[in-house]
Structure formats: structure tokens, C-alpha cells
């Protein structure tokens, strides 16, 4: 390209002359319609995997807490047999609850991460790419699901080592994976929704801690809904974590579960979460 710089310009060209820019002269073809969403989800999941590969320590440190829950709480309550589990050892009963809990803790972190990315300018830049906000949020939600899934594998292995009798049927495990991804997508969106409302990391950390405990204890993760007082049973029925644990128990242990309802509720919750987080994402961009 014969270009004559008219304005006085310093040495520039010969010291930093890029070689072979052929590909950078043509814009890539635009993906349109339904293809955009899976492409963006793929991009966000790829980033998640790359980050995990660079920082495996997080995977190990995050395994400590569920391991302690199973080991200390699980073993103790198995011995005192205080909780009606429908005939299975308490540690078996507890394991799906702990899988759901550790997945939720990971997902709840995503709101903090999106605020951090906003402060760092990463989010701002992503919002200037041809990515609709809903696709960005869906991508983040499924990236959270992927990370939670890897975490779930770790917890399942720990549980198996502690002697929990779980299924190894691949179809059931696939069902478990879908449940973990859907549940984490919901909790990630819940946290990104709150991030869109409170806008600062400090406030979100406070709220995050304030909601994870009631979500966990107000679910069937530790004990059956039947032993709860009436008002807590109502809360538990509205808590997506309960449906997640119900499905995980049904699939992993073969206990009676309402699988269709569980999948339905979680899919609906994830959809609503994506919608609400996407509508509030613009507030983070301002």
C-alpha cells in the first residue's frame, strides 16, 4: 500500500515494521443468528479451562472444604444416626448435598469475578465485541457450570474414596453433569444479577455470604425436608438447590426422586437467571 504520511511523524516505520499482516487486513466473516450463542459459550468455556490449567492450586484448595464436610460432618453423623435418611448411611446421603454445595460456592463467586472484570476493563472490552449481552452472560454461566463440573468430579472421587456407594452408570453420570451445569448456571446468574444491582465488590461479598448459608441450610442438602419446620419447608421448596440435590441423590444413589420436576425447575431457574443478569449487565458497563 503506497502510503505517504503527510503529518510529520518520527522514525516509527522502520523500527517497528510488522511483517506479514495479510490476515489482519480482512475482517473475519460474521457469525449470525443462532450460531452466535454456542460460539460465545465455547469461547468463555475455553478461557475457563485455560485459567484452570494455569492455576491448578485453586482446584486443590477448593477440594479441601467438601472433603472436610464429608470426613468430619459425614462420618460423625453417620455414627450418631440422628437424621432419617431412608435407610442409607448418612455419609452417602450427604455426598450429593456436598457436591451441590461446592458447585454453588463456585458459581456464587462469578458475580465477584464479573465486578473484578469490570474494574479491570476486561468486561468493558468484551461488551464492545459482537456479543449480545445475553450471550455473554450465558457464556459466563456455562463457564461456571464447567468449573463446577470439574469440582464435582473431584468431590465424587473423594466420596468414593470414603466408601460412598454411588452409581457408575454413564447415562446417570451424564444426567449428574447436566444437573450440576444447570444448577451452577443458575447460581452464577443469581450472583451476577446481584452484582448488577449492588455494583461493588465489597457489597456483593457481604450479600454473597449472607445468601449462601441460608441457601445451603434451607435446602435438603444436609437433612430431609420433612424434618424442617413448616416455614422452612416452604423456603426449601422455592430453593433451586433442593431440586439439584434431589436429582443428584436420585441419580447417584438411586433414592426416590422427582427427576422431571428437578430438571424442569433448574432449567427454568437458569433461564430466568440468564434473563435477569443480562438485563442488569448494562449497569456494570456504565
Amino acid at each position, binding site marked *: *500500500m*503506497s*502510503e*505517504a*504520511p*503527510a*503529518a*510529520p*511523524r*518520527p*522514525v*516509527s*516505520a522502520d*523500527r*517497528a*515494521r*510488522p*511483517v*506479514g*499482516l*495479510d*490476515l*489482519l*487486513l*480482512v*475482517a*473475519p*466473516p*460474521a*457469525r449470525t443468528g443462532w450460531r452466535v450463542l454456542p*460460539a*460465545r459459550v*465455547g*469461547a468463555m468455556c*475455553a*478461557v475457563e479451562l*485455560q*485459567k484452570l490449567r*494455569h*492455576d491448578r492450586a485453586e482446584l486443590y484448595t477448593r477440594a479441601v472444604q467438601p472433603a472436610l464436610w464429608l470426613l468430619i460432618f459425614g462420618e460423625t453423623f453417620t455414627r450418631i444416626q440422628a437424621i432419617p435418611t431412608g435407610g442409607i448411611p448418612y455419609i452417602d446421603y450427604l455426598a450429593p448435598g456436598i457436591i451441590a454445595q461446592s458447585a454453588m460456592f463456585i458459581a456464587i463467586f462469578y458475580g465477584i469475578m464479573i465486578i473484578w472484570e469490570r*474494574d*479491570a*476493563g*476486561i468486561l*468493558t*472490552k*468484551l*461488551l*464492545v*465485541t*459482537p*456479543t*449480545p449481552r445475553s450471550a455473554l452472560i450465558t457464556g459466563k454461566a456455562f463457564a461456571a457450570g464447567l468449573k463446577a463440573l470439574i469440582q464435582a468430579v473431584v468431590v465424587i472421587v473423594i466420596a468414593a474414596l470414603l466408601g460412598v456407594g454411588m452409581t457408575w452408570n454413564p447415562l446417570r453420570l451424564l444426567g449428574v453433569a447436566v444437573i450440576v451445569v444447570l444448577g451452577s448456571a443458575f447460581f452464577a446468574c443469581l450472583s451476577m444479577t446481584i452484582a448488577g444491582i449492588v455494583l461493588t465488590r465489597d457489597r456483593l461479598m457481604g450479600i454473597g455470604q449472607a445468601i449462601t448459608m441460608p441457601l445451603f441450610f434451607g435446602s435438603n442438602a444436609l437433612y430431609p425436608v420433612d424434618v424442617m419446620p413448616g416455614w422452612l419447608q416452604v423456603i426449601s421448596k422455592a430453593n433451586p438447590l433442593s431440586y439439584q440435590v434431589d436429582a443428584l441423590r436420585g441419580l447417584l444413589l438411586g433414592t426416590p426422586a422427582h427427576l422431571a420436576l428437578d430438571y424442569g425447575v433448574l432449567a427454568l431457574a437458569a433461564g430466568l437467571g440468564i434473563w435477569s443478569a443480562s438485563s442488569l449487565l*448494562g449497569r456494570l*458497563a*456504565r
Partner: protein
Amino acid sequence: MTPHTTGEGEPVRQGSGASGDGPGHGEVRVGVAATGPGADDVQAGVAATGPGAHEVQAEVTDAGTDAVTCSGLTYTFGDTTAVDALDLSVRDGEVFGLLGPNGAGKTTAIRCITTLLPVPAGMVRVFGHDATRERMPVRRLLGYVPQQLSADSGLTGRENVELFARVFDVPRRERAARVAEALAAVDLTEAAGRLAKTYSGGMIRRLELAQALVSAPRLLILDEPTIGLDPIARTSVWEHINAVRAATGMTVLVTTHYMDEADQYCDRVALMHRGRIHALGTPAQLRAGLGERRGVTEPGELPTLEDVFRDVAGSGLDDKSGDFSDVRSTRRTASRVS
């Protein structure tokens, strides 16, 4: 027409960028339209004289339209009017500098142009596309480097660029090659496998440049690209911007409060203060203009752009420019790079 035009168009437009606001501008643009592929005389005439058939307009849109057009752009945060009825045209192929102190409204204007802030339709156009009605087409034309250091520190340089190749729909078979070219263009090939958190400030800026370049944008928008960098890194960042621009012919819109950089690297500059543009032209024109008024004719004695700025902003750089959060974010960026 491909984004980066044919050989004939380029020097002409470059000339128009340098000649400034002179009456020749209109003629030059007709000339560009006429030399563009497929644009015959009649179409060029239509483009020059005003509205015509939709098809014709679309054809000429690419050849002669300004890269950015803001008409009466206004944006308020609560009671504060950050950008106040801004009229601005950035020509295709030029390096345009938006100058001003902290809080002048530069970043807000940029955020309106990049579709980050919602503005009423018709206020902002990028290569003829409305920034409100046609968000996705506008974003596909843009490469954006925000003021903060926006590379992801937990990823390698290559992965950072790959992400942007993915979200701009670069086909898989060409992704690796494109990413490699973008990294090579900013001299980061050797460091590409290292985590970005090990990079120096200047390297991160170059990485961000590579992220923006991988999608072959027609308009590169840089918000304070050299803030907080040491002089050597500043020069290096600018050299890479210029080299890439020379090779691709893209338009560059840059904000800065370093007047010396603007003087050295921009084809045209707009001096912005309190949401308004107070002077517009080539750095040489603005300095000569002020020199004339002050009776200075010796080239060596000409006022600097900073003098021009003090002159046009009147009371100018007072305590009201830049509130606490502006200063804080600027300092934060500066401390992270150094």
C-alpha cells in the same frame, strides 16, 4: 469494498487528513468516491450532492463516509453533563486525537462511540452505521483498547488474543495464524506463551493492541494508550500503532492528555474541555493560528499545543477538571503499569 481500500484512494485521503479543514476537503472526498471500485461518475455525484437511491448510498457509504460522525452528542450523568452537544467527524484513514484534561468528557465520548453507553439514535455513526440501531455491525468495525489495563492476567498473551479471535468469529482453521500475526505485529511472539501478569506495562499495552487488531478493525479506538508508561514504552507503543496503521490503513481515534504525543503522532486533533470541543485542526494549524495571533512567526518559537489549549480553554485547567473518581482511576491505571 474491503476495509482497507485500494491503492489509489489512500494517498488522496491521507492528503485530505493533513490539509485539515480547508475548502479542498469536499473535492477530495468526491475524488475518493469516484476512484472507489464500482462507483461511476453519477454515483460519486450523488454522494457529493446528497441523498440518492438507497443502493447507491450504501455503495458510497463505504468509500467516502467518515469513520466517526457525532452530531449533537450529549451525555449526562445525573446533573453532570459529561459531553455537551458534541459535533465531530473523524475521517477515514486519519489518526485523530481527542485531547483534554481529566474529566473533559473524552472517555464518555469514546464510550458513546463504542456502544457502551446508550445514546439516542442518530447521534453517533461509525462508517455510516448508527451506534444505537446497528450495534453489532458497529462493534464488528471497532477495535477498542480502554484506559484500564484490560488484558486478563491469568491467561497467556496468546490466549488473551485467542479470546478476541473467538468472539469476533475468526474461523477455527485460520485462528492460530491470525493470532500469530497479531502478536508478531506488536513484537510479542516470543513472550506469547507467558502469563500476562509477567508482562511489563508497555508489553501489556502492546498485547491489548494485538487483541484489538486480530479482528481487522477499520477503526481503532485507544483511550489514553500511554498513560503511566515510561517514555521508552510510550514511544514503542506509538511506533507499533503507526506501523500497523501504515500497513492496514485503519482509522485511529485516540484520547490523550499528553499534548506532545498528540502533536507528534496525530493528523488532526480536537481540544476538548468540559464536554465541548474548543479547537479543531492539524496540530500545525492550531499552533500556527495561535502564533499568528500572538505575532510569533519564527518556526522555532511557535506555541505548543498546550499553549493552544490554555488559550482556547480560557480559565482552562482549573480545579473543576476531573473529579475524585477520574483522578483515582487514572492513578490506579498508572500505578498498575509502572
